[in-house]
C-alpha cells in the first residue's frame, strides 16, 4: 500500500543564476538527457527550461508508437536499443511507462512497397531485430477486419510485421523522466521561455529567459519542433522543416485491435490505446508552419482512409483531433550535434515523427556526448555535415517533398 502514498513527482525550485548545463525543452528528449546527465554522469547542476508545461510539445501530441523497423542499419541499431530502454526506465524510474509490446504491422499496397518490406525485414533480421514479411491473409489474421479484397483503391499486398514494437504511454514517459531527473537534483522550470542565447566568444554563456538571464557552461537545444527557432537565435540555420502533423482518437471501444497497424499508401497509422480509443494519425500538412491547428480536411481524409482499410470502423466515431509539430529533415533522420559553432552548444533535433520513440535512447547518448565531449559511435551517422556533403542517411528511399516546389 506504500506504493499508493501520494507525493509530488517533482517540485518547483527557484531559478538559479547559473547552471552547469541548461537544456532547452521539457519534452522527452530534454528530460531524458537531463536524467542521464544526472544519473549516469553525475552532472547534477542541470536545469530543464520549458516555455509551457512539460510534455506540451510533440512529447504529448504523438500517437505513442515505438518501433525499430527503420530502413538503414544505423537507424535500426539505434531504435532497437531504444526499445530495450522502456523496460529499463520503468524499473529505474519506478514509474509504469505502460509499454504495450503489441508489435507493429506495416501494410504494403504495391509491389514496390513489398520490395521495401523485404529489404527492411532482411536488414532487421541481419541485425538481430525481429521482423517478417506477411502475405495478405496473414495480415488479416493479425488485424481482424482488415479488408484484403480488391475493393480498396489500394489493395493490400502484404505487410511487414515487427513484433518488438508497440505503444508506450507518452505522458508517463515525460512525467517519469521528470520524476527521475528531479530526484537526481535536476531543476525543471515550467513556464520559462528562452528568448535569447548569450555567447562569450566561442563559448555559450547562458540564456535569456522570460524569468531572467541564466548562465551555463553547456547548453542543449532539444526543443522539438521549435529547435529551428531556438538555433536561429544564434544565427544557426538548420535543414529542418517544421510541419504540422495531426492525430485523433475515437470513442473508446473494448479491445479488438491487438497490434499497431500502418499504411504508407493511405497515410494512416492506428492503434488501440489501453483506454480503448483508436488513436490514429500520420497525415502531415505539406506547408512549412509553426501552427498546431487541426484541419477539417484531415478528419475527413482519415475517415476515408480508415474505412477503406477496415470497413467496420464505419461504426466508430471520432472524439478528438489535435496537432503537433514534426521537425522534418530532408532525409528523415535526426541531427545530433555537439560544439555546434560554439563550444558547449549541443543540438538534438530533426526527429520528424520519430521524436517520441527515440527520446530515451537519444537522451542517453546526448548525455554521454555532453558529459564527455566525445561523439558516441551510436550517433555518428546523425551529423549535420551529412547535408553539406550531400550524403543523406537513406532512412527514406524516396526524395522527400516538403513544398509545392518538389
Amino acid at each position, binding site marked *: 500500500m506504500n506504493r*499508493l502514498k*501520494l507525493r*509530488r513527482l517533482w517540485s518547483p525550485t527557484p531559478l538559479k543564476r547559473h547552471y552547469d548545463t541548461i537544456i532547452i525543452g521539457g519534452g522527452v528528449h530534454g528530460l531524458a538527457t537531463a536524467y542521464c546527465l544526472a544519473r549516469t554522469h553525475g552532472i547534477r547542476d542541470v536545469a530543464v527550461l520549458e516555455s509551457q*508545461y512539460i510534455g506540451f510539445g510533440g512529447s504529448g501530441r504523438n500517437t505513442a508508437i515505438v518501433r525499430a523497423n527503420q530502413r538503414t542499419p544505423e537507424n535500426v541499431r539505434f531504435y532497437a536499443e531504444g526499445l530495450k530502454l522502456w*523496460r529499463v526506465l*520503468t*524499473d529505474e524510474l*519506478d514509474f*509504469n*511507462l*505502460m509499454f*504495450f*509490446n503489441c508489435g507493429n504491422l506495416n501494410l504494403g499496397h*504495391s*509491389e514496390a512497397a*513489398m*520490395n521495401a518490406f*523485404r*529489404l527492411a*525485414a*532482411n*536488414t532487421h533480421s*541481419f541485425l538481430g531485430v525481429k521482423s*517478417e514479411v506477411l*502475405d*495478405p491473409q496473414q495480415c488479416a489474421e493479425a488485424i*481482424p*477486419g482488415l479488408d484484403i*479484397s*480488391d*475493393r480498396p*483503391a*489500394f*489493395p493490400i*499486398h502484404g505487410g511487414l510485421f515487427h513484433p518488438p514494437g508497440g505503444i508506450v504511454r507518452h505522458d*508517463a514517459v515525460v512525467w517519469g523522466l521528470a520524476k527521475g531527473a528531479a530526484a537526481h537534483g535536476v531543476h525543471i522550470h515550467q513556464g520559462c521561455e528562452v528568448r535569447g542565447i548569450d555567447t562569450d566568444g566561442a563559448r555559450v554563456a547562458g540564456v535569456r529567459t522570460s524569468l531572467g538571464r541564466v548562465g551555463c557552461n553547456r547548453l542543449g537545444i532539444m526543443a522539438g519542433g521549435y529547435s529551428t527557432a531556438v538555433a536561429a537565435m544564434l544565427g544557426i540555420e538548420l535543414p529542418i522543416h517544421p510541419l504540422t502533423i495531426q492525430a485523433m482518437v475515437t*470513442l*473508446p*471501444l*473494448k*479491445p*479488438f485491435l491487438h497490434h499497431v497497424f500502418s499504411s504508407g499508401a493511405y497515410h494512416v497509422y492506428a492503434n488501440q490505446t489501453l*483506454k480503448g480509443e483508436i488513436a490514429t494519425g500520420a497525415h502531415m500538412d505539406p506547408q512549412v508552419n509553426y501552427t498546431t*491547428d487541426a484541419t*477539417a480536411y484531415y*478528419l*475527413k481524409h482519415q*475517415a476515408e482512409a480508415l*474505412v477503406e482499410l477496415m*470497413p467496420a470502423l*464505419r*461504426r*466508430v466515431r*471520432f472524439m*478528438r*483531433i489535435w496537432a503537433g509539430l514534426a521537425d522534418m529533415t*530532408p*532525409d528523415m533522420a535526426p541531427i545530433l550535434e555537439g560544439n555546434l559553432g560554439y563550444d558547449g552548444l549541443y543540438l538534438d533535433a530533426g526527429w520528424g515523427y520519430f521524436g517520441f520513440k527515440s527520446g530515451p535512447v537519444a537522451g542517453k547518448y546526448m548525455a554521454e556526448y555532453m558529459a564527455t565531449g566525445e561523439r558516441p559511435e551510436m550517433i555518428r551517422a546523425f551529423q549535420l555535415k551529412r547535408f553539406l556533403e*550531400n550524403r543523406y542517411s537513406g532512412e527514406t528511399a*524516396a526524395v522527400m517533398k516538403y513544398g509545392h516546389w518538389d
Partner: protein
Amino acid sequence: MAVGRVDVGSGSPESRGRREGSLPPGRLTPGPTCRVDFSWPLAFRFLGRSMTGFAGDTVASALYANGVRVFGRSLKYHRPRGLYSMEGESSNTLMEIDGVPNECAETTELREGMSVRAQNVRGDPKTDRFAFIDAFDRLMPAGFYYRLFHRPYGLWPLFQNGLRRMAGTGVLDPRRELEGGGRGRSGTRGRAGVGAGGGARADGGSRANGVQAERYLNAAVAVIGGGPAGMAAALAAAESGMRVCLFERRRWLGGHLAWRAREFAGEPIHRRGEGLAALLLSRSRAAGLVKVFTSSPVTGVWGENLVTGFTVGGEDHPFRECHWECRAKVVVVASGCMERPLVFNHNDRPGVMQAGTAWRLARTHAVSPGKVAVFSVADDLSLEVAVDLADLGVEVRAVADAREVGRQDPPLVAALEERGIPLLTGWAVSRSIGRRWVTGCELRAVNGSGSRRLRCDLLVANAGWQPRIGALATAGARLAYCTHTHTFQPAELPDGVFTAGSLTGLRDPRSIEASGRLAGSRAAEWCSGAAPRLATAPRECESLPAPEPGCDIRHGPAIGRGAKAFVDLDEDGTYKNVVESAVQGFDVPELAKRFGGFGLGPGQYRVTGQNLAMIMADLGGDPVEAASPTTVRPPLVPPSLATLAGPGHDVHKRTPLHGELAARGAVFRRAGPWQRARYFGADPRLAPGVDRGSVGGRRSGRGSAKIGRGSADADCGGAKASRGSAEAGRGSAKAGRGLRDEILNVRRNVGLLDSSPLGKFRIFGPDALRALQRVYISDLSKARPGRCKYSAMCNDMAHVLDDGAIIQDSERNYYFTTSSGRAGSTVEWFRYHTRHDGWDYHLVNLTDAFGSINLAGPNARGVLERVTGDDVSNEAFPYMGCRRITLGGVEVRCLRLGFVGELSYELHVPSSYCQFVWGQLMDAGADLGIRPFGLEAQYCLRAEKGHVIVGAESEARVTLTDLGMGWLWDREDTASKKVGAPALRACEKQPGRMKLVGFRVEEGAGSGGPGSPRDGALVVDGGEIVGYVCTTRRSEVLGWQYGMALVREGHAVRGDRIRIREDGGRGGRATWSATVVDPPFYDPAGERLRA
C-alpha cells in the same frame, strides 16, 4: 430553403392527442410543447425485452418512459449510470444501437424495430457483475496505474491484459462489415428501407450503414444555433441581403424557448420561438437567402471560418447522414448554454439529472421524470423548472438554491411559495442517497452548517449555467473567466466571429433576441466591408436586461468524506482524484487533465471543463478568476467515420484505352492517380475453373486473378511458383504465365503497351531553351528536329527526379516527355527554378490531351508499315528519331525509343483517337500474334536492359553519377545554372558513396538457395551490410538471373564476386553468390534497338 426536418410548431393537437385517461404508462398528458406523437407507436427492444415508444421520442426518453433507470455502467468503477443530460454531454447513455457501439441514446431518434443494449455491462446493468470494483476505489487514486503493476516487470503483461479487458465501453465486431463482401455504401443494405417509405427500415436506422452524402456550402454568414438569438441573427443578416446558413443541432428551432410554457410578455414563451421560426422559414422560402439546417450539429469552426458538421437524415431524406462544410465570411455563434454540473457526493447516481433533462422529459417527451423531486440549483431558469414540474404533478419537496438570499427572481420565489415548495437559499445538495437509484438526498448550507435529509426519487442538480463555448473556442476565441456571469467568456474574438444569445449570459428572452439582431446586423456590416456603425449597441438594447450574475459555487458542501463526487462522469474522475493530481504536482488544469483523464472521455470538455478549472484554482489557493480553461478540441460532437468518409469517391484517372485493356483481361492497379494495366490475365470466359467470385470484377472488369497467396508477383518469366506465400502474392500462377508470355511476345514478336500516363509537354517562346537548360542536366542546345534527345532532371541534391526525351519541333519550340509520376509536378518545377529570371516561355501540359501507345518487338515495323503510308524504314526513321506519321488518317507523333530493348515506336495520339489507333494496330498485327503487355512486363523488359526507373533503382542516397548516368551531365555548362550541377560536382569524387551495379547470380551447387534472391535482398561483405538488391529477375531470354543493386563503392567492382543474402523470410537465412557485371544484360551492343 429549409434542409432537415424543420419542425416549427409542435405538431397539431390532434396528432398528439390521446383521450384523457388512456395515457401510456410513464407518460404525462401532452402539453403544447410536446413533440411525441402517441398515435404512432414504435416497438423496440432493450435487453431482449420488447418496449414501446412513440414517434418523436429519443431512445433515451423512450427507455426512461419504460421505466429504465440504469442505462449502463461507468468506465472504471462500473457504477450504475442513468439519464443525466439530454444533448450527449456525458457518456452515461452511450449505448449499442442496432449493433453500432457508442451511439448517444439522448440524441438518437427512436425508430421502429431498434435493438438497444447497455454498454460496459456483464449481465443486466442493474446487477452488473463487475459492480464490486466500486469498492476498490482506494486502490485507484489518480494515476494509480503509473505506480502499480510494474514490479516485478514480468507481471506487467498480465496486468496490462487485465487493464485492457476492462478498458473501453462499446463493443465493435471488426469482421461484420466484411461478411458477404458488401460495404454499406454500395447500397444493398443501405437504402433498402428508405424507398419503402413508412417508419420501418431494414437495418433499424443504423447510421453506420446506408447512404451518406456530402454538401459543400458557401455563405456570407453562418449562424451556429437555431435558438431565438440565432434565428434573429439570421433574419437580420438576410434582411441586409446576406446569404445565411443556420445550423441547429436539434430537430426543431427555438432553442431553450421550445419547451417553456410559462407566460412572458403576454404569451407562452415557446410561442416566441415558434413565431421567429415561422418568420425565418417563410423568409427562407421567399427570398432564398436563408438555408436552415436542423438536426445538424456543428463539429467545429476551423481556419478561415470553415464551419463543419453533419445532418442526420429523417424519413424523407435520401441519406442517413450528410457531412457538410460551410465556408463563411462571418460566423455568428449563438450556441446557447448548458448546465454546469454540481459536483457533490454520489452525484452520478441514477435519478440525479440536470434541470433541463427533467424539464424536457416532461415537456418535450411527456415522460414523467419522477414522482418526488428535490432541486439543488443556482439560477432562475431552474427555479422555473421546479415550478413547472410541480404544475405537471411532480411533488417538489424542496428547492435548494446555492445563491444567497435576494438573488432570485421575485415572481419565481412567489410562485414557489404559492405552491408550498420550501426554498432554501444558500443551500445545496451534499449527497445523494440510495443504491442503484436515488431514494433521497442530504441538503446542507453551502458553508457546511446544518443539514436536512429528504426522500425523493428525482434529484435535480446543477451549479447554474455555462455557455457552450466549443464553437467559439475552436474558432480561435481566447476565453477568460468572467466574474460577473461566473462563466468562461471570450476575452477576444477573432475577426469575423460574433456572439449572441444566452451564451453571453443574457437570460431575458427580449435581450436574447435583440442580441441576435445586433449580431446579425454586425455580421452583415462586416461582410459588406462598410465602416462599422454598430460598434455600440443601439438604444433598443440599452433598456433591456443585461447579462445576469452567475453563481461561483465550486462543489457541493461537505465534499469527499468517503463518498465519490464526480468531476468527470465519463472517465470516473472524482473530486478526490483532482486533489490527488494536484498533490502529485499536476496542479494546472492542462496537466491534471492528462494525468487524471478529466475531460478526455466521450463528453470531452463539455461537462468537465469549467468545474475542473474552478476546482483547480480553488485547490491552488487562487481566486476563481484565475481559472483557465483547458483546450477545447474538435469535433464538438463525435461524427461517425461513415459520415465523414461520405459516399466514397475514389478519384482516379483512366487512360483513353482503359476499355480496350479491360476487354483483354487487364488487371489494373493504381499508379499515382492512374489505373494502369499491370498484366493481362487469361480471359475468364475462356478459362473454366477460374474463381471469379472473389474478384467480382468491380474495378478490373473481367479481372481473373484470384486473390490469395499466389506467387507470381513480378516473377518475370521464371514462373517459380515456389516463391513462397510470405511474398506479396496478389495474382496467381496463371497471371505469372500470362506475364511470361507478354514478355516473350515482345522479345520475339510484337506487343502493345498503353503508356498514356507518360508526361507530354510543349515548351515554346524566346527563352524556352534557357528554361530547358536550367532544369535538364544535359546540353539541350543539341536537341534537333526529328531527333529524340535523352536527358534527366535532378534536384539540388543531384538526386535524379525524372528522365525523358526532348525534341526540338522548330525554332524556340520544343516537345518533351517525363515519367508518369512527374507529369503532375513538372510545370511547377520549371516555374520554381526559373522564377527569378523573368524569362519569356510557355509551358503546356499535354499529358491528358494525348495518349501514348508503345509498339515494341522485332515485328513492330512490320505492323506499323501496314497501317501507315509513311516511310518508316530504318533508314528513313532511325533509332532515336521522331516523325509525324499518319495512321488511318490520324496524324500521330512517333518516337523511336528503346526502353524495353527492342525495335519500338512510341505513338503519341490525340486522346480521342487512341481507341481507333489501338484497334488499327491490333488488327494489323492480329495474324502476327500481336498482344498487349502490361507495366509488369515492361518493368522486366527494361531491367534486362539495365534501364533505370527512378525510385526503383535510385534513392535519396544516390546521385546521377552514382547511378552510372553521369554521362548525361554537361559539365562544361555553368552558365545555365543547371539544377543539381553544383551537387554533382561536389560529390563526384567523394569516396564511399553508393553506386548502382549490375550482377549475375551464379547458379548450381555452391551458390546457395533455395530459390532465387528477390528484390530487397541484402548485399553483405563479411559481417556488414554494404548494399541491397533493387531489382532482380530471372530472364527467360538470357536463361540466367540478373539484377541491379546499390552497393557502397569498393565493395562491388566489375568481376567481383558478391554475396547476396536474405534473412527476413520465413524459411530462414539464404545466401547466393553473384558476379558483378555491367548492364545491359540483354543485347549489350544495342543492335536490336537499331534493327
